[in-house]
């Protein structure tokens, strides 16, 4: 029985109206494509921190991290620890991000054109969008599932909830682009933080730290606290997530867009270092919620879908009033993520995939119209994909596999582009090919009844991900060394 009431509905309604008004109000500052895609590179440090923190925490984040806590205990927060370390390392050293921001480009593929040529830029754009859209495809349904479960709505309203959520986000993103995203991200950061804090304290008080640790000990033993000792995790889980974290920090389009929108390289790097701890928080807090669900709910109450364990718990323990703040916080988290992701992929489509067609010669007015249309089309895609795709297995596993379609190749390409003189277009093409082929093959095999067992039980997502990074690196090195030096110099010259 949910505690969602008219008081909570009013809080949520007020929040949505405030966000929409703020998001739409800044559309008058959007005069150029650069304003629409990267806010005219006018973003300062603290706005960058708030925006990145809001973007990288959505309902989908909360759902998969809580599921990880429910199924793995505290060890489920391992990817958060690794992501925080990767963020700090990259921001502190400037590894790859310094040359990337210094180059003054709008997207990563634009940087690749300088080193590997226009075909690699286009190909990079295609895999980034392919991986990104497949990854984001499950956001909407997951958000709808959460809201329906927590508010206690009839599941038949799931599609309507998804549509309303998407349209709200699409309106201000289409009109204001990155400027709207930054302003609404800021509001969402404040609301989201207040909600997360209040609910976490409530859970810690109601369930108690002793019960949380005792539950994890009883279900998973030492493995619930140490990923290397966990039966379903082990070294391959840690290695796969370490590689993923580093690649994500270096090339995840929404993260990179904050770096590129920063007013200078120093500010961009500071956004990285000072947001790094947030990447631990965004895992550990929902993991605690997931463990609390494991502690409070019986297996019969949770059923087969462990993804809904945490929302079911929240619907029971969060009282009226705080429920409104929680829903507003989660809507805030989801809207900031959806808007930023829609804009990210649209910037790559406009800048890199359509680049050969407009060649930077379209008028600002036409460029803006096309950019806005792309955002709207991505919204339509999300709606249909979210309704159609049946999610099998863990949500986090799905996200890592789809993300790796481009994270592995783009990560290796970026490192090679910045630090290896022999890297060239042959190596880049091979890396992109392997980087996309292995995760897609895994996804297809996971869906086919004849290969499902082999994909999920024999290989598994972690080994598949590690294999992707290894093959991509080998392809980069071998391809680059195979290309004759003369042809290499010629293509660089051209």
């Amino acid at each position, binding site marked *: 029985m949910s505690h969602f009431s008219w008081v909570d509905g009013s809080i949520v309604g007020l929040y949505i109206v405030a966000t929409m008004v703020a998001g739409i109000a*800044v559309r008058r*500052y959007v*005069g150029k494509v650069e*304003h629409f895609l990267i*806010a*005219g590179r*006018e*973003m*300062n*440090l*603290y*706005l*960058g*921190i*708030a925006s990145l*923190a809001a973007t990288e925490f959505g309902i989908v984040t909360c759902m998969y991290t809580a599921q990880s806590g429910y199924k793995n205990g*505290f060890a489920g*927060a391992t990817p958060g*620890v690794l992501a925080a370390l990767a963020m700090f390392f990259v921001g502190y050293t400037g590894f790859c991000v310094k040359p990337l921001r210094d180059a003054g480009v709008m997207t990563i593929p634009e940087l690749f054109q300088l080193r590997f040529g226009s075909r690699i830029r286009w190909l990079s754009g295609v895999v980034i969008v392919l991986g990104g859209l497949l990854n984001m495809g499950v956001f909407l349904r997951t958000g709808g599932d959460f809201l329906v479960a927590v508010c206690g709505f009839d599941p038949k309203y799931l599609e309507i909830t998804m549509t309303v959520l998407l349209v709200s986000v699409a309106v201000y993103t289409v009109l204001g682009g990155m*400027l709207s995203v*930054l*302003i609404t991200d*800021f509001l969402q*950061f*404040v609301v989201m*933080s*207040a909600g*997360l*804090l209040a609910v*976490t*304290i409530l859970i*810690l008080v109601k369930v108690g*730290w002793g019960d949380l*640790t005792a539950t994890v000990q009883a279900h998973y033993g030492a493995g619930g*606290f140490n990923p290397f000792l966990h039966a379903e995790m082990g070294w391959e889980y840690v290695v796969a997530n370490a590689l993923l974290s580093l690649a994500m920090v270096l090339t995840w389009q929404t993260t990179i867009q904050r770096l590129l929108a920063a007013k200078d390289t120093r500010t961009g790097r500071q956004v990285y270092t000072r947001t790094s*701890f*947030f990447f*631990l*928080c965004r895992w*550990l*807090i929902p993991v*605690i919620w997931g463990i609390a669900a494991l502690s409070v709910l019986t297996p019969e109450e949770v059923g087969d879908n462990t993804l809904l364990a945490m929302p079911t718990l929240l619907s029971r323990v969060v009282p009226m009033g705080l429920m409104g703040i929680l829903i507003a916080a989660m809507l805030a988290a989801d809207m900031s993520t959806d808007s930023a992701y829609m804009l990210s992929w649209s910037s790559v489509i406009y800048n890199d995939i359509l680049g050969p067609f407009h060649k930077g010669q379209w008028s600002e007015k036409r460029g803006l119209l096309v950019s806005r249309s792309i955002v709207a089309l991505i919204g339509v895609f999300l709606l249909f994909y979210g309704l159609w795709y049946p999610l099998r297995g863990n949500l986090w596993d799905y996200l890592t596999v789809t993300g790796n379609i481009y994270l592995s190749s783009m990560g290796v390409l970026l490192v090679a582009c910045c630090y290896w003189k022999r890297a060239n277009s042959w190596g880049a093409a091979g890396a992109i090919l392997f980087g996309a082929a292995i995760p897609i093959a895994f996804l297809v095999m996971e869906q086919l009844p004849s290969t499902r067992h082999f994909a999920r039980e024999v290989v598994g997502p972690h080994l598949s991900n590690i294999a992707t990074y290894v093959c991509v690196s080998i392809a980069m090195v071998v391809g680059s060394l195979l290309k004759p030096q003369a042809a290499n110099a010629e293509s660089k010259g051209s």
Partner: protein
Amino acid sequence: MPEHWIWMALTAACVIWYSSVTIYVAIRGAMDIKSMLQRLAKGSEDVRQDS
């Protein structure tokens, strides 16, 4: 020292981070928005004057 102290320390750090850093970032972020919009408005005026 309590068992599993590392997870307890990290959880406490997260709660403290959210209850302190958030307020600071919110105040400074609001100032950033103000200055960003001022710069963008000034840029638009300069473009209009140039044309």
